[in-house]
């Protein structure tokens, strides 16, 4: 039944010093539909590809607002993500209540990291089967963090997790140096372009399956998190299409106008 004797639980090291249960949990993240995050000096953007179980069912939410200054995008077990997002909402609210301060991003990210780590060291628990991208703004500016089931959290310039996310990461790596000079809208477009890279031949981005979230600072003023879903994404997708066709005409991958 098992691949070997060392993958029954998260409290057993393999002879190589690996913890297979944690590695398998990372696989669950790859089963989830893709989400992309990117950040520059003024904004942090999350975009996600929503899936529906069947034609007539609703789409699974991919981006969850935690507070007005922060949101997460999820890939993997959505119910695990809900546990984590509820915890994050509580912590964020707690910080506003006791200090009157929006919780700093690195704080809340290391808190969920610590929680996830506990699940990998104690018998009877299992690692979370979800990966998160945490985007938000605090006193130190916009941030993007990646959270993994192992409890590893890393601050990223850009990131993509979920099914076929490698294509998006390749796009992000290739365009990484452009993000800092980007406007808010251009950054969103880069996110959508990265997301589009992951689609298989027969799929495309539509108002039904696309989610976009933005948070940032403009001229020193914090801009609350805004989520675009459904018809709100129509305008964004239209711009994407224009840029792509303009790009195709110029026979170039680059779509900066």
């Amino acid at each position, binding site marked *: 039944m098992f691949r070997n004797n060392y993958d029954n639980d998260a409290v057993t090291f393999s002879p190589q010093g690996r913890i297979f249960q944690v590695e398998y949990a990372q696989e669950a993240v790859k089963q989830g539909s893709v989400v992309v995050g990117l950040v520059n000096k003024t904004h942090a953007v999350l975009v996600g590809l929503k899936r529906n179980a069947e034609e007539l069912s609703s789409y699974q939410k991919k981006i969850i607002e935690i507070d007005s200054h922060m949101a997460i995008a999820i890939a993997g077990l959505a119910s695990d993500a809900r546990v984590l997002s509820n915890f994050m909402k509580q912590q964020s609210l707690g910080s506003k*209540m*006791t*200090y*009157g*301060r929006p919780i*700093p991003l*690195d*704080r809340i990210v290391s808190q969920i990291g610590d929680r996830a780590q506990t699940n990998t060291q104690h018998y009877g628990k299992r690692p979370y089967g979800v990966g998160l991208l945490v985007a938000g703004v605090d*006193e*130190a500016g916009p941030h993007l963090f990646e959270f993994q089931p192992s409890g590893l959290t890393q601050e990223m310039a850009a990131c993509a997790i979920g099914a076929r996310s490698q294509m998006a990461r390749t796009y992000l790596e290739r365009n990484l140096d452009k993000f800092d000079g980007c406007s808010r809208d251009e950054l969103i477009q880069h996110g959508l372009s990265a997301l589009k890279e992951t689609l298989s031949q027969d799929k495309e981005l539509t108002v039904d399956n696309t989610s976009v979230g933005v948070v940032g600072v403009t001229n020193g003023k914090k801009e609350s998190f805004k989520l675009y879903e459904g018809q709100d994404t129509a305008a964004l997708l239209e711009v994407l299409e224009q840029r792509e066709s303009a790009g195709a005409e110029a026979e170039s991958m680059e779509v900066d106008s």
Partner: protein
Amino acid sequence: MNHFPEAWGRPRNDVYGAYDHSYLQTTGPKAHTSSPAVTGTSVVGVKFNGGVAIATDNLASYGSLARFSDVKRLRTFGDKAIVGFGGDVSDMQYLDRLLASMDINENYSPRGNMLNAKNLHTYLAKVFYKRRSEFNPLWNHVLVAGFDGEGEPFLSSADLLGTTFSAPHLATGFGAHLAVPILRRKFPEGMPLEEISQEDAVQALKDCLKVLFYRDARSIDKYSIAVVTKDGIDLKEDEQIQGQSWAFAERIKGYGAQTV
């Protein structure tokens, strides 16, 4: 005395009557601090153009006894906030340790997310309110000085009940009665902050401390004064009230050893 050990050292029942155990009641309501023991008196603070100035004297009184004369009642938090404590000194020490542990925790995060004075005031007021709601108050009245999230000068008070109050100039304890009128005269209502210089603010505090030393019997002429600006905190803890004149005392009649 008889041979029963439990009776040794007890007054003899046959002489004094049976011991009345009701005097040793351990049941009944649990009592917490219901009055302060060693106390500091007034704290005075003034906002000015670009910062806040705050001052206290260096005395801790035990009742009417001037018990400790080198007590630092201004405590810094990070490099942009300061708390001035009036009231119970041991509760102040407790809060100081609390602030120290918060400061250590804050510094675990990378720079740029330090709690500002406004955050600190919000927190301290919650601590006071929680403790008074448990009928175990921290017997202090504090002023918090520094900057708010927008970088504007911040000055606000919180007391043992969790009451908060904010104004361009504030004073606690005896100072609330004696210093505030002086400050209101110097800086009338509606006077824009831009017109108050740092020198004016510091001078006003010194004047207040002098009057307080004249009239507050729980005060002393050694004081601490701090100025918080964007550049950081300038804290002086060993100052002496200058230019005292007790001539006015001659005119005060009706107490003490005076015979006329």
